[in-house]
């Protein structure tokens, strides 16, 4: 973002925040706030993939929900092609839906058990009145073809399909409206190991063929490394590091990123690493630690960390980190 030829990213998030009120007592007064997402910025260029990683409670799911208009942000902007999408309604919202879509994690609960594949994949077409009744089956068949499912599948119901097939249906549904940006929320973690690579390859192929932009959310760091051009890591509602994929995995700067990467069990017994084992648990999101949120578990923590919250600063081209000691 600090290159000389600055081009605005195709999709951008600025200062995005989401706060949930905590209500206590008979009168249900608001006593505190959960700052699930506390001011994050990132951008994705067209046709590229941003991997978003972080552990439970970091806010990545909430971020995805806000981008999809499933939850309303408490603050900040979500920009698609330069235009803010947070406050759109009505027909503008419908138009937005055609541009941003999602692939869900669980192939078992993300398909309506009472609808067949044709109805599931056809719903986007019907909602947006894209084509007439007569062309609908052809459009659905074409969409299924994108995910290598034959038209026969249209009459089948989810319970008749395998996990991999269901996930393909979910992917087909997300492609129906020809979106530009797709949020992939753990697309293979609920699938059997031996079929994951089929779906991964499908996602990569679709990105190439259709010029899709992906926001790829996953906890499997090897997978994120494989799929992403750029990676951002969240902790307690903030982005603590963001970098091109190669830099992120080879030269992580933030102590949390280091710990995260070292925690991943290495499946090559020849490559043993010094394991950084974080002590303690995640602090409460209602009352995050003052200053740097990570300081309660950070091996580098010092007095400065409690007083002043580090800002996300560029350390090397494209590589941003929020840490007092690892910035430069």
């Amino acid at each position, binding site marked *: 973002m600090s290159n000389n030829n600055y081009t605005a990213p195709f999709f951008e998030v600025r200062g995005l925040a989401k706060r949930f009120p905590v209500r206590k007592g008979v009168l249900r007064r608001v006593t505190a706030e959960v700052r699930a997402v506390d001011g994050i910025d990132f951008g994705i260029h067209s046709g590229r993939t941003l991997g978003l990683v972080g552990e439970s409670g970091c806010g990545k799911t909430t971020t995805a929900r806000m981008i999809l208009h499933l939850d309303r942000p408490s603050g900040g902007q979500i920009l698609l092609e330069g235009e803010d999408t947070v406050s759109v309604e009505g027909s503008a919202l419908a138009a937005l839906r055609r541009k941003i879509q*999602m692939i*869900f994690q669980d192939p078992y609960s993300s398909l*309506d058990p*009472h*609808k067949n594949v044709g109805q599931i994949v056809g719903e986007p077409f019907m*909602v*947006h009145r894209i084509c007439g009744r007569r062309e609908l089956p052809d459009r659905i068949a074409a969409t299924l073809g994108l995910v290598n499912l034959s038209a026969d599948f249209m009459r089948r119901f989810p319970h008749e399909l395998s996990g*991999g097939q269901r996930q393909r249906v979910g992917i087909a549904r997300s492609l129906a409206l020809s979106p530009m940006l797709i949020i992939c929320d753990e697309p293979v973690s609920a699938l*059997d190991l031996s079929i994951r690579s089929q779906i991964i390859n499908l996602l990569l192929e679709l990105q190439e063929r259709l010029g899709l932009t992906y926001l790829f959310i996953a906890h499997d760091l090897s997978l994120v490394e494989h799929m992403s051009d750029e990676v951002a890591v969240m902790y307690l509602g903030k982005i603590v590091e963001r970098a091109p994929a190669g830099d992120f995995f080879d030269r992580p700067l933030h102590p949390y990123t280091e710990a995260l990467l070292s925690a991943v069990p290495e499946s090559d017994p020849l490559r043993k690493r010094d394991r950084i084992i974080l002590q303690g648990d995640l602090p409460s999101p209602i009352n995050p630690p003052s200053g740097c949120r990570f300081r309660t578990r950070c091996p580098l923590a010092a007095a400065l960390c409690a007083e002043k919250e580090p800002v996300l600063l560029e350390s090397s081209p494209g590589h941003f980190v929020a840490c007092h000691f690892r910035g430069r």
Partner: protein
Amino acid sequence: MSDAQIPRPSRNGRVLNPALRRVLRSRLFIVGAVMLFLIVLSAAAAPLLTPFDPVAIDTKNSLQPMSLRHPFGTDELGRDVFARVLYGARISLRVGGFSTFFTAILGVLIGLFAGWYRPVDMIVSRIVDALMIFPGLILGIMLMAALGPAESNVILAMTILYTPRIVRVVRGSVLELKGLAYMDASRVVGAGDLRLLFDHILPNAYAPLIVQVTFGFAWAILTESGMSFLGLGTPPPAPSWGNIIADGRDFIRSAPWLMFFPGVMISLAVIGLNFIGDGLRDLLDPRLRNTARRVGNQAG
């Protein structure tokens, strides 16, 4: 999470088919269904089954015991009890049927919106709670006293009485289904509230609803009889089972058949419907959702 169990596609693939097969294997359901069928049949075929007019008075023949001519005997006005009971079935089924039907429609609509929109829920839940505080019959009596005696008023009163129960069941289903991933998925592709409610939630909420409606039908028959017995239901001389029993009250020693037969009919109708409801409850819902997965998960 298992690809290991890919069930073979059923003949036309609908989710209902395996359930339908199981339904037919449930003895409870079949017995109940047969009982109800017989009652409906006899109500429909009443003119064929008895030559007597249920309201025709024949004081010469009053209080006759059971005989070939009068299988259920006659009451104090000489009316043939068998005919009254058969035509009474029509009343029970009609009143019970209509009130159940309206209850279902109203209950589903209110329940869906209450479950979906919190402001609606706040109002509806308070009303539902208030209505359910009263014992059904007491409230029914109050309503009939206010509305006046007429069959249509009985239907109205019973609809008001039972709708809260349906509202609760449907609202519960909505709350449970609202958070499922496929609801989010449909919202993300652009489905609006109405489509989400009627196209996604309602089809998945049928199971507890159908069971509750079936029990509601049984309740309606019982309540109509009860209100008629107390003189505040279907107005005489219509042969509602409750009326027949009420008429027979003074003759419980001398002509017990007057109370016995309508009582038995009420019992049979209610038991039959309860069997159907029980049978349906055992068969619907949890099994439906889990058939494909259970074996696979256990095997892993």
